[in-house]
């Protein structure tokens, strides 16, 4: 909305889609815990971007917009369930192999992330998966930077406790 005046030339949606697809799937996977659902959620986010492309293309960072939509979808358990159901309904026609399994220690980490409050999970997923700064995460999620710092601090502490990592209390 801030940059939605249409003054920026609209980049091609197809190029945008191909460029950001993998990152958005990874984000949705980390937050949803379901690989098939992650693809469905990413599709839903990109479809939303496509519907609003005249506006989204004018943003400074359209990739951030689609990530925000995907992150919000992924932490909605109802939408996650629905995406899983939809994915299951399509598996009969799946022509590609399923993705590799996560290593147990990685799976444990993302399970712990998904056990966090939704905002904390979103912040920490963007921080680790995309190496985004506090300022970038704040802009992406429409939060104040101070709020992001608080979420990140609490998330780190909770993750350390859940995973049995010591020495994180004061970070």
């Amino acid at each position, binding site marked *: *909305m801030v940059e*939605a*005046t*249409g003054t920026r030339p609209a980049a091609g949606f197809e190029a945008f*889609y191909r460029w950001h*697809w*993998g990152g958005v*799937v*990874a984000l949705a*996977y980390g937050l949803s*815990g*379901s*690989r*098939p659902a992650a693809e*469905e959620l990413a*599709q839903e986010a990109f*479809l*939303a971007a*496509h519907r*609003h492309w005249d*506006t989204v293309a004018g943003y*400074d960072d359209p990739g951030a917009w689609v990530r925000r939509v995907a992150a*919000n979808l992924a932490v*909605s*358990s*109802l*939408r996650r*369930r*629905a*995406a899983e*159901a*939809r994915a*299951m309904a*399509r598996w*009969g*026609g*799946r*022509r*590609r*192999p*399923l*993705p*590799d*399994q*996560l290593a147990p*220690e*990685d799976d444990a*980490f*993302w399970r712990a992330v998904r056990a966090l409050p939704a905002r904390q999970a979103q912040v920490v997923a963007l921080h*680790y*998966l995309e190496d985004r700064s506090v300022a970038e995460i704040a802009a992406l*999620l*429409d*939060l*104040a930077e101070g*709020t992001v710092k608080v979420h990140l601090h609490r998330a*780190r502490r909770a*993750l350390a406790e859940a995973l049995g*990592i010591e*020495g994180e209390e004061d970070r």
Partner: protein
Amino acid sequence: MSIDTRGRQAAAGLHASVGHLAADPPPLGRPCSGRRVAALAAAAAAVVLLVAGGITALRDGDDGAAPVATAPGEVPRLLPSEVPAGLVPTGAVDLPVEDDSMLVVTMAVYGDPEADDPFAEGDLAVYWQPDEVGPPHSPERVRGPAAVIDEAGEVLIQWVEAGHVVTVHSRSLPVEEVRAVAESLVVDESGAELPDPPGDMALVGRAPLGIDGRDGRVAIPVDRPGHAAGWQREPTGSLAVATVAGDAGTMAAMSWFSQPGERTEVAGRPGWSLAGGEMLLWQHAPGVVAVVAGTELSAQQVRDVAWGLRPAPDAEWAELLALRAAHDAGEVEPQQATLGGGLPDGGTWRVFLREDGVLCVEVGEQQAGAVECLEPPDEPVVLEVERSDLPGGGRLVFGWFAVQGEQVLVGDAQAELASDGEATLFAIALPPGAPDGPVAVRLGGEVLAQEP
């Protein structure tokens, strides 16, 4: 190892696991087995019909909710007394509908039928739908055909047989037991039957559920009487209210679909709170199941809707049916965030965000005023505030913000809010003599943006 090191390792592992997907994005909006967008209201429900006659009246509990009268065998049409801010109606649909585009999955769920929560000690679902796309490419074999076996959190085995995509799925059983169930099924053209459920499990419920091909949030038996109405807030917010005839077994099938959940009461009636409180499903009356489901709504908002349901007047329902038809025909413009109200002189005011994000205002007699759309700011802003003197005195203070505020104060007065998913519109009509003041966008106790 620090938490940051662990997090980065986990991130690398996750990226690696989906890396091949990034190299080959699927076509956007790939068709769901060739099905077109389904026609159901944007609802989020899964209920099944099992008509039971002889119901004469539905009484709420002692919670003060209004009683809802229902004729024998009738499934009532229900609407919220108050819709959460920012949601606009997408319409309604009466069931049954004849819609070949709807994906119908026949689902049988197993657990302990005597338990309050039949899935607490173990669960199993067997479901199937017509095959339209052929078997998966997989080295795994179950019952002979190639099968997909997924063990990520839940165990799911799926294959194609006798013209069906057949799935065996459990959130509690190990893969070996799920595979054994798959091997023991009797599958023919009519579907799948499980002659001997594992352990102490028994059939809890069975239902054909129609899944909305548009967003997958709807799972309703579309072949039987019922009613559903939907609202949405672009891009991803939604609310659905549905009533369908159904019994405890129906509710069990539906609740399995939307687990995790817990038993609860809704207005004194037995039901389920599912999907983290985003969905409430309850036995509204014998033979009638009701569902309220929301996305991007709090559990409290969903509860407020459920507790405040009212019978839908014929005229209001007819408008919603027409709106749904218009949506299906592509005659409805995308959602706009809109606020409006009346003026002391009998006129009206309306402010809205146009599809391109431009702020517009209309003041006139019974919506006959001219629409004025304002020039967008030259530079990106997070808060735009406009003021307009109203006929007969008073002032309209309105605008939008792009931060995540939950309250806008104009001086000491609280403005109304509406969101289009990208920005939040606010407006307040100050009566003559009322003090104007600075506009502050607040979240909790924090001021996120202020003007001037």
